[in-house]
């Protein structure tokens, strides 16, 4: 059933709230500042509560069902994260308070910095970036600052494998670099011959997503990094897929120079409409001085009587501040909570289960769907949502039909190197029963695609609204509720 808009529920003159008579003298605004018409809906308080409750019940979230949205790591957000983030000592502080009065919050930031350094294998980190792509932009700006600090102004290109995250080329371009496309080989690794051909003294660096968006760990990662370093370039690691690596390998040890980490993916903070992201940026020793200003550190070690004092330090060649205050602090609290609750062994279990779940699903599905890169996968894998015997069915139809089974569709049409891509990431959170239900639904849909294609074409049938017009949604943008009078 569809819910009317709040304007359709409006009834002229209906009120949800009545103001008391003022007990201070009225001070009317000048007439010219008072609008004659304010077209807001008029409803009772109960009508408003019901309307928004109905809308919230139509939401789909990780709390309501399986959410295998590839590349997004839609894992369970443990409730204890929320309990800790709501403690008064964290929720009621202000970033402009004197540092002596917010030592607990600074300790939390320091502890998260230290934990992420240990997990990623890097010696320095900033918690400021507001999300993954923001971390990328900051990382690329650091690459630029590094080369310019050596008087090297001719490095204007960044190499981007076609299996990289889609934001990587955008971040490179936004920082003023030319994004250069780097193809994959038949096994889904970086094409080494092409990499060697492109690496020269105009290359600022390479942005590598590893595992990549095919869910594959590059089998020549050490060689790739070495080739770029020998050409004088830096290697940026897109850590969006870090959920496959916790406690198993560390990008810093592999030789990456820079890595952003998505707290809202790997470290279980809410995302997908549920909260802001957070994309801490870790760097190797030679880049530490360029990190955003400021970082949290112990500024006075104290002694037997006095505890250490936490405060801010200022990297010498910093590219500057890149976010107001100190990043998304509430997310920082949640991520640290998750890390401490898991512990080192728990984090390794997370990655092992995420990889096991993905390989289990891949094994169940590869008989029904074409798997173009048929290798053991990491935390996700990519199928084709298309069959030669069902020429009118596309990945989009499969995705829409999954909604009828009460499941969130996988990421579709990405990565671009797979025809009609369906990118599936189950995460470690799901039980075998849930994975079996999903695999069963996917196999039924594959059968329906051949026998009752109209079921897919017309899907979804069981949702509040049916198939949406994507062309109209992309072309006819309505950017405000009404056109202001000229």
């Amino acid at each position, binding site marked *: 059933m569809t819910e009317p808009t709040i304007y359709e529920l409006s009834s002229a003159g209906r009120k949800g709230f009545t103001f008391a008579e003022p007990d201070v003298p009225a001070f009317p605004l000048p007439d010219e500042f008072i609008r004659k018409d304010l077209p807001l809906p008029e409803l009772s308080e109960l009508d408003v509560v019901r309307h928004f409750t109905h809308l919230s019940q139509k939401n789909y979230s990780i709390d309501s069902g399986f959410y295998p949205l590839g590349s997004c790591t839609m894992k369970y957000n443990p409730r204890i994260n929320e309990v800790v983030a709501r403690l008064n000592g964290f929720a009621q502080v202000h970033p402009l308070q004197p540092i002596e009065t917010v030592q607990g919050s600074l300790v939390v930031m320091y502890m998260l910095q230290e934990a992420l350094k240990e997990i990623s294998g890097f010696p320095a980190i900033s918690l400021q970036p507001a999300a993954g792509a923001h971390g990328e932009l900051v990382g690329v700006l650091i690459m630029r600052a590094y080369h310019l600090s050596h008087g090297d102004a001719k490095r204007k290109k960044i190499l981007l494998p076609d299996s990289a995250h889609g934001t990587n080329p955008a971040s490179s371009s936004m920082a003023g670099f030319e994004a250069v496309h780097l193809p994959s080989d038949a096994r889904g690794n970086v094409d080494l011959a092409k990499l060697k051909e492109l690496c020269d003294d105009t290359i600022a660096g390479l942005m590598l997503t590893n595992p990549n968006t095919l869910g594959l760990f590059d089998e020549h990662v050490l060689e790739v990094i070495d080739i770029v370093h020998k050409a004088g370039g830096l290697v940026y690691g897109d850590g969006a897929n870090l959920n496959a690596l916790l406690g198993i390998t560390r990008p810093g040890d592999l030789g990456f120079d820079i890595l952003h980490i998505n707290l809202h993916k790997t470290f279980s903070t809410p995302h997908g409409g549920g909260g802001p992201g957070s994309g801490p940026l870790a760097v190797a020793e030679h880049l530490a001085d360029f990190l955003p200003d400021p970082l949290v550190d112990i500024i006075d070690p104290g002694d037997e009587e006095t505890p250490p004092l936490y405060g801010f330090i200022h990297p010498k060649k910093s590219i500057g501040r890149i976010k107001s205050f100190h990043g998304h602090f509430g997310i920082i609290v949640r991520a640290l909570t998750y890390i401490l609750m898991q512990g080192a062994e728990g984090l390794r279990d997370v990655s092992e289960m995420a990889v096991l779940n993905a390989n289990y699903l891949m094994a169940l599905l590869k008989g029904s769907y074409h798997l173009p890169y048929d290798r053991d996968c990491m935390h996700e894998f990519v199928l084709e949502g298309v069959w030669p015997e069902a020429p009118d069915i596309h990945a989009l139809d499969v995705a829409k039909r999954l909604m009828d089974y009460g499941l969130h569709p996988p990421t579709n*049409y990405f990565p*671009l190197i797979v*025809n009609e891509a369906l990118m599936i990431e189950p995460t470690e959170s799901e039980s075998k029963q849930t994975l079996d239900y999903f695999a069963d639904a996917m196999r039924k849909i594959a059968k329906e695609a051949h026998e009752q294609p109209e079921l897919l074409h017309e899907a979804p049938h069981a949702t509040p609204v049916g198939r949406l017009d*994507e*062309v109209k949604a*992309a*072309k006819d943008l309505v950017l405000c509720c009404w056109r202001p009078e000229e």
Partner: protein
Amino acid sequence: MNTPANLRYAKTDEWVKVDGNIATVGISDYAQDQLSDIVFIEFNREIDDVITKGDALATIESVKAAADVNAPISGKVLEVNEGLSDIPETLNDDPYEKAWLYKIEMSKPDEVNELMDAAAYDQYCEGRH
């Protein structure tokens, strides 16, 4: 798939129609089919701009993806089919006639010989699945 025999094709899915020293450039039927419903086109070049083979000439967005149109030949821009910006779906409906993108005065006409003929392009597209 429709691949007119009188055109030449680039590996990046642009077509070229040669008329004397003038080349008309657009995107192939295969390209529009792969992109699916096209909702936006932005032209990066203006009349009189000098372009080199491989330059990004335009950006096309569909409901699925965004893609660059690359210059299949070098030369100088004579005409831009700017009206397409208002009706980008023409790229789906009529990629070889109404939805041409640029007319270019070629500076290196020999570059046309490096492009594929229709049979070679068909075979090339076939091999991409």
